[in-house]
């Protein structure tokens, strides 16, 4: 099982890495005028006088009990802060993935079915363009046209789902769309390529020769085998989205993990960064496992070894 080593490695590496960052968090807490005794005392209090390994073991022990420590700045409970912000990032990632699927599935299927037709050629050009547009650029353009000019959608800010689903969606749609478009382009091309190959398979011809209608052939016969690559890639994307929607969160000032990550790294808030990285790594690993399960479901040949 890869899960455990990966998680341990990631969390340990984070600690080492942040440790290498110059700048003394203690000084930034106490200020420049702190006396050496105060610095030493604070350092001892925060456990910063131990070795990296010692600190890591301490941290791991606490983490396994769910205690991620207290933020070095502002005395925030790390676990609490993370769980407060996690839903935002998760919602963004899931929404982006859903939009991408909604765009990629039908267009990929149709482009493969009508291979070489105008739709296929048009989507090929469009997807090439979308892949070349970084989310921050698309987000900038969206913001300009939809939010500033037309005043249709809000530019920044967030309303929690539990509070007002309608408003929440209004705030979430633009960032999710900016994230979704490049993913949708990649997924669509992948699905199309796999489906074109699947449609050449003899069993598809056999289905046609049985008189099955095109919808049946494409959706019920060909989609499942073609979706395997897509599921793998989508899973990886989802994992990345959770950890990497940072730029978009920054642009739209969303209270998610990404923004918290930026702030914490800038302020050398080791404890917070440690917790954040761990959570993101867990999410990535869990999603990878889910992908393996999904692939096994889609392809029964994989199941028994």
């Amino acid at each position: 099982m890869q899960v455990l080593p990966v998680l341990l490695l990631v969390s340990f590496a984070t600690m080492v890495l942040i440790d290498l960052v110059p700048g003394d968090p203690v000084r930034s807490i106490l200020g420049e005028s702190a006396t050496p005794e105060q610095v030493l005392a604070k350092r001892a209090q925060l456990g910063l006088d131990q070795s990296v390994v010692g600190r890591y073991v301490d941290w791991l022990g606490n983490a396994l009990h769910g205690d991620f420590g207290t933020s070095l700045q502002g005395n925030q409970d790390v676990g609490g802060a993370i769980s407060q912000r996690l839903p935002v990032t998760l919602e963004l990632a899931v929404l982006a993935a859903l939009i991408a699927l909604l765009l990629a599935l039908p267009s990929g299927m149709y482009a493969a079915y009508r291979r070489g037709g105008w739709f296929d050629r048009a989507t090929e050009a469009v997807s090439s363009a979308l892949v070349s547009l970084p989310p921050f650029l698309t987000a900038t353009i969206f913001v300009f046209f939809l939010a500033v000019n037309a005043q249709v959608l809000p530019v920044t800010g967030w309303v929690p789902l539990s509070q007002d689903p309608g408003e929440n969606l209004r705030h979430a749609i633009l960032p999710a769309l900016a994230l979704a478009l490049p993913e949708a382009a990649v997924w669509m091309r992948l699905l199309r390529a796999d489906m074109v190959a699947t449609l050449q398979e003899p069993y598809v011809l056999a289905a046609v020769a049985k008189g099955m209608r095109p919808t049946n052939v494409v959706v019920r016969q060909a989609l499942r085998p073609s979706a395997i690559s897509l599921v793998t890639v989508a899973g990886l994307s989802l994992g990345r989205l959770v950890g990497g929607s940072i730029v978009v969160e920054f642009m739209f000032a969303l209270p998610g993990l990404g923004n918290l990550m930026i702030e914490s790294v800038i302020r050398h808030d080791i404890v917070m960064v440690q917790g954040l990285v761990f959570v993101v790594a867990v999410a990535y690993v869990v999603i990878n496992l889910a992908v393996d399960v999904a692939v096994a479901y889609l392809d029964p040949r994989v199941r028994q070894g």
Partner: protein
Amino acid sequence: MAVAQVSRAAVSDDQVVADGVAPDPSAPTSPPGAGRRRRSRRLGLWLAVTWLVVIVLAALLADLLPLKSYSELTGVAAQRPGFRGELLGTDLLGRSMLSRVVYGARASLAVSLGAVLIGAVVGGLVGLVAGFYRGGFDHVVTTLVNSVLAFPPLVFLMAIAATVGANLVSLVIGLAVLTIPTFTRLARANSSTFAEREFVLAARSMGVRNPRILLREVLPNVVPVLLSYMSLLLAVLIIAEGSLSFLGLGVPPPTPSWGGMIAAGRQHLADAPHLVFVPGVAMFLTVFSLNVVGDRVRSHFDITPTTTGGTA
């Protein structure tokens, strides 16, 4: 930030029908216009190559070109393109957009190219050995690869920048490390496939030792695949570097960068859209061209299976 790229199925679109082999009867009813499509494709490819040549030459020869310095204040701020001889206008401080775009190209291309080359060499070698020998080393490599992938890229880059200093070198190293997993996976998959082929078996049966086989038989087969992905990864890295510069964490000032220019011009989209669109278009065209070229090259060489493994 998308740094991990995956291999896609290589399907040739021009289906030549051999006698006796029935093509797919569920194919489109509209005429494929194969000739038309091929011609427009070739045109697209040549346009892409042309743009790339232009931008690379401009970046390389920037100092020789009759451009104003990118930090020189030419006077009037935020002017649209074409104003008083300034081909692409001026930015908020009155600096020449043309110069800034060209020097920005230099920064982006240099960083991305450096990172991709380092990543390809390191990742390629590691993956090559791991895929060939398998066993313990392979397990370790896979764990490391998964760890790097699980690690939030931004934290890593910021930490590197904060440690070594926020300069071009740290940026290149950081980005290189992030591309290594992709190259490792690619090299590993191909290496293990080739390792099972008959010509390796033949070499081994003639008494050739493993390291030599690896170097002489497997490596030459893996290199083309890696090369074919480089264009695509270059595109990804340019976007990554752009994102970083956008956040202010990339190429440090005073060197201009496309991402930084977009960030600076963000608030003024209403009255001076060229501030965003000039670097935006430049970045888009470059990335787009790299993708077009990369796809073409890749479709010739890619034998990697479509499913990239999860944690296994």
